[in-house]
């Protein structure tokens, strides 16, 4: 499932890659990729297809996560265009459900059961609701996210899109593309939007 998405994204960026200076791909990188391809084995749900870079990953890898602005802008727009919104147009779900999703870090590893729902991993990297003091600091604090920004349709759309595909805003962001790769569905993403924006959410109390 994820492979298909990777391929689609790769197609769009092949031409962009050609525009990069050849020297960007060092001999060590090329050799390292060959070693990776040779020295990994599939396990559980983690197949060897995961070792292949999609277009975006390739650009970020080759440029040290600092792609030329022209390429970044165009690819970001491509990523953003792929965001799938709920058919009913409602972007605000149930913050309580959102909190549960934000807490869970499960999913996609070779020890995870592929049949079980995947978590949002949010607290791994972000401060969110104040009650949870065990949070990571890889990403910015999201505490009072809605209180600081309001809860209008534009903000909702922004939050939804960012969770769905953070690379639509920052091409080489460290944040996964949760909706884009099929980790979280529309329903789950809007619960997370509610966690961030609902005035009743502890995030905004």
């Amino acid at each position: 499932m994820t492979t298909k998405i990777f391929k689609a994204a790769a197609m769009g960026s092949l031409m962009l890659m050609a525009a990069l200076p050849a020297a960007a791909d060092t001999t060590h990188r090329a050799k390292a990729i060959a070693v990776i391809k040779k020295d990994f084995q599939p396990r559980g749900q983690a197949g060897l297809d995961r070792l292949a870079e999609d277009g975006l990953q390739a650009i970020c890898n080759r440029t040290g996560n600092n792609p030329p602005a022209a390429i970044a802008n165009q690819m970001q727009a491509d990523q953003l265009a792929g965001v799938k919104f709920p058919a009913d147009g409602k972007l605000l779900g149930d913050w309580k459900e959102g909190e549960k999703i934000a807490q869970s870090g499960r999913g996609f590893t070779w020890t995870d059961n592929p049949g079980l729902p995947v978590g949002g991993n949010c607290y791994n990297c972000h401060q969110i609701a104040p009650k949870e003091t065990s949070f990571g600091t890889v990403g910015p604090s999201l505490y009072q996210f809605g209180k600081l920004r309001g809860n209008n349709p534009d903000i909702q759309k922004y939050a939804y899109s960012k969770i769905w595909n953070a690379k639509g805003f920052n091409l080489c962001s460290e944040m996964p593309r949760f909706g884009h790769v099929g980790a979280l569905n529309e329903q789950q993403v809007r619960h997370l939007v509610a966690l961030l924006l609902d005035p009743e959410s502890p995030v905004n109390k």
Partner: protein
Amino acid sequence: MKQSLIGALCVIVGVGSAFAQTPAKKPATKAAVKATPAPAAEVKDAATLEFEKFRAEMEDSNPAELFEAKGEEQWKAKRGPKNVSLAETCDLGQGIGKIEGAYVKMPRYFSDADAVMDAERRIVWCMVEKQGYKFDDIAKQPFANETFTPDITNLVTYVAGQSRKMKIDVPLKDPKVREAYEMGKAIAAYRAGPYDFSCNTCHGVDGKRIRMQNLPNLSTPQGAMSGVQGWPGYRMTGGVMLTHQWRMGDCFRQQRFPQPKYASDAVAYLLTYMIGNANGQVYKGPGIKR
């Protein structure tokens, strides 16, 4: 009911406990909130200090010593289809049977194998080439679980214990080792998989953490050393002895990658990068891990 839940928790290994839900931590955090409504960074520091207070006591009598003792016995015993000991046949880079300080000088290049090898890979190579064991048999279950500890884990722990209080000294001036280092560096930067993660996503900058777990920056000497220190390590969760090779694999697991092959180039190169970055730092010997 509760017991089985706790039992299941014990199966979660590594930083995985930070990535996965940890229901059992709830009481602590709740109490912490009550005591200090301040940002959690301070709460963490208090907890970290508390852990460190008992670190020395834990390290003082580390169950790793039991595995070290077993490894010594196995290193010296005539074993395998060829019925020879590693002590009389295996060269870890300092000459046959010489193991003092060998661990901190690996990975290194071994001409007899024409490969850059970390300690575990080298010992496996000796077991295969000198003692006549089959690689596939060793690779079938190379890491310990709660009911089984492979010989190789004991052996690595013993060899590591022979480098206590010595400085890390990976021979990066050797062009072959330098090449492995550069490849390891590239592997650490390689983003792929469903979450676009590389090693560096978590371990490429200073001062970040996942949940409460501090993330060492492997590109700095101190950061790299905190990724080297304590391995092989006795993991309190489950009470198992695990090696540095295992740790690399578990990182890839959490990176959502497939599994690196046991004792492969990829792992040896990554270890060369990481341990090489820790050159000059003092290794304390087999450790104890959360």
